[in-house]
């Protein structure tokens, strides 16, 4: 049994725990115990070590419940990024890292593997039990660093020479990096860059700021790479209904980000169904890039076309079948001093249209693939909806029944006009 280590080798396990602690936060230890009580204790301890200030607990009849509570409007940086800085490594990895980059200090000087090895010996002088580093280990490390872009290689005759990649000077002011690290996709990379600064003052804060997507950064990064290369990928997709994740072969087309519900979806073509479907990115893992597909541009153009009828992330079900669109229209009443409601309709209408019926009535209309996605938004106009029609009558009935249920829930009886 290995001893507890603050660092981790595999991100997937902690990804699930952090999400549960942050989003749900009501599960007690016994609910995590199904797999291993020790695993729970280790993961909880790691989170306390990384995010101590944000960990809280309550005692309930079911036991002590630990959870993460973060007001992202008050946090300067996304604290969940810390998990990405906890990758484990060997003693040799860290030792070689600093020695190699010290030997390759000057980016104008290219050295052969032999030269690097001979210079390396001096670094271990004076240690009681000098670390033994063989040629193959150093070659592998150099190869890894070439892949990461830290070292470059060049051929001189039959010999390979290695040198440090050209340094890029980062801007003196950190505000732009800080801003992008919080609001741009894969912002954790910006956080890695900010770690290069001795200290910095950040003058921008964020409202309505969802930070959970930080945990999906690696998956997102791989999906972007697939899109850049116009590749097919295989990806594991977890489901609430199935115990084991299912492997899907898909063509990633675009990432859909919500600023209002904290979710990110991938819209991808799934050949098995000949359909463009949405996948929750927080359910995806193990993205493997396969061959490029000549259909990428055509499929993305199809998605562009579909977006005219997408309220959220639901696209047309089958590519070569007839378009099945649902129609929504509702009318709201506007009082004399309520111009802001008209502004709301205009700025929030997405693919819909807003029509002025008279001084005090406006009608919203849209044709969409899935009315279900619109219902939460339509409910935000409760208090002024005078008419409502869905082409999907089941949903219309349910919408109206829900309003009745709310009247009962809050004890509202007959109200005179």
């Amino acid at each position, binding site marked *: 049994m290995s001893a507890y280590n*603050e*660092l981790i080798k595999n991100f997937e396990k902690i990804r699930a725990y952090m999400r549960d602690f942050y*989003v749900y*936060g*009501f599960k007690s230890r016994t609910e995590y115990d199904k797999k291993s009580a020790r695993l729970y204790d280790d993961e909880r301890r790691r989170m306390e*070590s*990384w995010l101590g200030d944000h960990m*809280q607990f*309550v005692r309930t009849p079911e036991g002590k419940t630990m959870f993460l509570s*973060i007001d992202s*409007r008050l946090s300067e940086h996304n604290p969940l990024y810390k998990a*990405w800085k*906890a*990758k484990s490594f060997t003693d040799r990895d*860290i*030792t070689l*890292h*600093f*020695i190699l*980059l010290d030997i390759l*200090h000057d980016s104008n000087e290219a050295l052969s593997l032999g030269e690097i090895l001979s210079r390396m010996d001096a670094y*271990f002088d004076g240690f009681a039990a000098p670390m033994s580093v063989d040629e193959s280990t150093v070659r592998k490390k150099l190869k890894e660093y070439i892949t*990461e*872009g830290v070292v470059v290689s060049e051929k001189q005759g039959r010999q390979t020479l290695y040198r440090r*990649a050209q340094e890029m000077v980062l*801007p003196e*002011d950190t*505000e*732009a990096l800080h*801003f992008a690290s919080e609001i741009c996709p894969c912002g954790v*990379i*910006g956080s890695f*860059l900010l770690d290069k600064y001795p200290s910095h003052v950040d*003058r921008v*804060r964020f*409202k*309505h700021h969802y930070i*959970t997507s930080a945990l999906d950064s*690696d998956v997102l990064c791989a999906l972007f790479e697939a899109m*850049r290369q116009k590749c097919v990928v295989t990806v594991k997709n977890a489901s609430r209904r199935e115990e084991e994740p299912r492997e899907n072969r898909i063509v990633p087309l675009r*990432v859909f980000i919500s600023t*209002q*519900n904290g979710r990110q979806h991938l819209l991808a073509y799934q050949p098995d169904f000949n359909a463009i479907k949405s996948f929750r990115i927080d359910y995806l893992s193990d993205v493997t890039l396969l061959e490029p597909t000549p259909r990428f541009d055509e499929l*993305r153009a199809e998605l562009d076309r579909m977006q005219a009828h*997408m309220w959220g992330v639901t696209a047309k079900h089958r590519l070569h079948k007839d378009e099945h669109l649902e129609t929504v229209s509702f009318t709201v009443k506007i009082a004399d001093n309520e111009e802001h409601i008209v*502004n709301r309709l205009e700025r*929030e*209408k997405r693919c819909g249209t807003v029509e002025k019926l008279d001084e005090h009535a406006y009608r919203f209309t849209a044709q969409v693939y899935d009315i279900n996605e619109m219902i*939460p*938004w339509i409910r935000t106009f*409760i*208090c002024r*909806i005078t008419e409502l029609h869905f082409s999907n009558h089941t949903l219309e009935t349910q919408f*109206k029944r829900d*309003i009745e249920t*709310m009247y009962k829930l*809050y*004890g*509202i009886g007959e*109200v005179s006009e």
Partner: protein
Amino acid sequence: MIFHELYSAYYTAVANILSALIDGNTDEKALNSLVCEHAFGESLLTVLPALKSEKWQLMHGDFSTPICHKPTMPLTTLQKRWLKAISLDPRVRLFGIDFGDLSDVEPLFTAEDVRVYDRYADGDPFEDETYIAHFRTILQAMRSGQDLRVEMTNRRGKTMYVRCVPERLEYSEKDDKFRLVTSGCHFVRSVNLARITKCRLYNGEYVIASRPVETQYDTLVLRVSEERNTLERCLMHFAHFEKRAERVDGEYHLTIRYDRDDAPEMVIRVLQFGPTVEVLGPDRFKNLIIDKLKSQKSCGLL
């Protein structure tokens, strides 16, 4: 690959320790404080002990180091590709920062790869020259600690003149707007940047004190049903607040701490869940929901 030890907090901490050793700073307390600053809560138990025990052969027993130069690392390809991607974003360009020569770098993503589908359509004009000039004046004022003189149009369309201390900028992804949070002006606490018509540094002698206004918080308690996947949707939706979720007698209660000024927005955020989320308290918030429902009932929809 994002999950790589090159970006590890331990590597950052050790790089800082080695720099300190090269500078001749061998005070153990100071070295440990670098660990606290750059790594995690329990890293004190690992980092310096690993160096002292020569597990990581980078520091001798006398706190000297075989490393000759203060550690630096060139940007990785991933970092450059991300920088290229963000350098194309008009919001990032507002800061007027030169990220260096990235002409031969492939961006990690482009605007074509991403769609933010529920952002409001009346966001700030990030590419408007006047807006950019105002933004940079505000940044300059914050950096140099100077006050600002701002001419703006208020919600009622009237022109206002404000002299204030610029405390910070606040960006809302949903609204796609920047606000300037101010102090020192009793009638304006924040200014939407798009409403500013003129903005310049104040170089006069009269000093106004920076007294940031404390946010007043309220607490909201919701009963959340599991029906229609509401529990997950609701917890995700309110995830960005300081909150606590509890299971009480087979049902779920969610307690949220929010800025009192945002109460109208919170009301419609709760309403969107329909009957599967019920306000348990406080009564004044519950009454706001009841008022909305009463008005709805008078609309004659049902």
